[in-house]
């Protein structure tokens, strides 16, 4: 019964912490919201984005504003129902960019007969990766009017289920990206000898994506193309190695030209 579902991506909230709208922050080379669009489209479901920022129109899917602004995710869900015709909507928040097709499909599969189905991974329930039936709309409006805006509280009175997907999917799929520091290691680069000379500085600060392990030689060669033509070594916190681990936040990374001691 996939036909009766619209995917609603919630990108409504402005995020001052991110410096710009969360969903437009780039993860692995493309905006977070675009990862989710790709997943929704691969399932073959219609998609709409709920956002108050017109920049989201660049993705060629319908974008609608919140009808209840500043009412948090429930306001977005409301707008999702309002601007879709399907019997159910699959809600995904734009700040969980690693959600995969299989996760969405298994939630949909389990959802028959329930008004709301949301997943739980280990001890954490994720109400903003879930499927909601239109029968919840009226009381959604009531909650918004009453400004009772907690999503978990909203779910409770309905015929709902929380499915445990801990053994089926990696925690990574639920990872929440809120700030640049969730995405990048902010690192001091120390350069020496002929490399410092070419860079015209001995110390510079850069952001290196660290959501996945990263080969620094490859990264540096792209950032500073002259490096690809020379021999050098890399020291992460003074230890000679070239692979930055997932989520690692080193204090310094040194780029060392050939040694010439003695």
């Amino acid at each position, binding site marked *: 019964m996939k036909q009766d579902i619209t995917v609603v991506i919630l990108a409504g909230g402005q995020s001052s912490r991110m410096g710009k709208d969360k969903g437009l922050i780039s993860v692995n080379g493309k905006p977070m919201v675009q990862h989710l669009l790709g997943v929704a489209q691969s399932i073959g479901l219609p998609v709409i984005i709920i956002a108050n920022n017109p920049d989201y129109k660049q993705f060629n899917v319908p974008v609608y504003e919140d009808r209840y602004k500043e009412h948090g995710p429930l306001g977005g869900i409301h707008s999702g129902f309002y601007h879709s015709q399907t019997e159910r909507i699959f809600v995904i928040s734009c700040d969980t960019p690693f959600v995969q097709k299989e996760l969405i499909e298994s939630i949909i599969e389990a959802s028959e007969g329930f008004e709301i189905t949301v997943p739980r991974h280990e001890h954490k329930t994720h109400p903003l990766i879930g499927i909601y039936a239109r029968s919840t709309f009226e009381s959604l409006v009531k909650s918004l009017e009453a400004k009772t805006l907690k999503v978990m509280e909203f779910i409770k009175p309905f015929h709902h289920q929380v499915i445990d997907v801990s053994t089926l999917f990696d925690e990574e799929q639920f990872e929440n990206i809120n700030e640049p520091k969730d995405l990048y290691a902010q690192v001091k680069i*120390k350069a*020496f*000898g*002929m490399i410092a*000379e070419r860079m015209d500085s001995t110390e510079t600060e850069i952001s290196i994506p660290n959501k996945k392990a990263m080969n620094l030689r490859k990264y540096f060669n792209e950032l500073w193309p002259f490096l690809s033509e020379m021999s050098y070594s890399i*020291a992460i916190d*003074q230890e000679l190695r070239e692979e930055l681990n997932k989520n690692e936040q080193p204090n310094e990374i*040194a780029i*060392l*030209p*050939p*040694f*010439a*001691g*003695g």
Partner: protein
Amino acid sequence: MKNCFKEGAITPDFIASSIAHHQVKTNIGAHQIFLGQVRSDIIEEKEVVAIDYSAHEEMANKAFHEIRENTFEKYDLTCMHIYHSKGIVKSGEICLFVFVSSAHRKMVQQAIEFVVEEIKAKVPVFGKELFEDDSHVWKVNK
């Protein structure tokens, strides 16, 4: 962490007094000294007049420390000292001073070779070879 760097050239006086300090250690039967000297290479018809040494000092001192530990483990030594220059050292002056001591000669002969090779390969020290006309090239250990 001991700082193995000395600003500028390592002077013959400094080396002499290092030797003198060991005269009280009478269990020593053999010293071996290695001195690295700045050579005035001719590179593309220009003569090197000095080397300006720089380093990732903290990392280099850790590397010196590790080399020291490894050397003591491998060879039966009484004591060991390493000094390396930073900044400008003119050609003909000393930029590296390694001093190992033991009861017997075989130990220090083997140890000194190990230490010097390890320093050349593992310590992040960089050398800018300066010419008379203020131009330069970067030295690379072979």
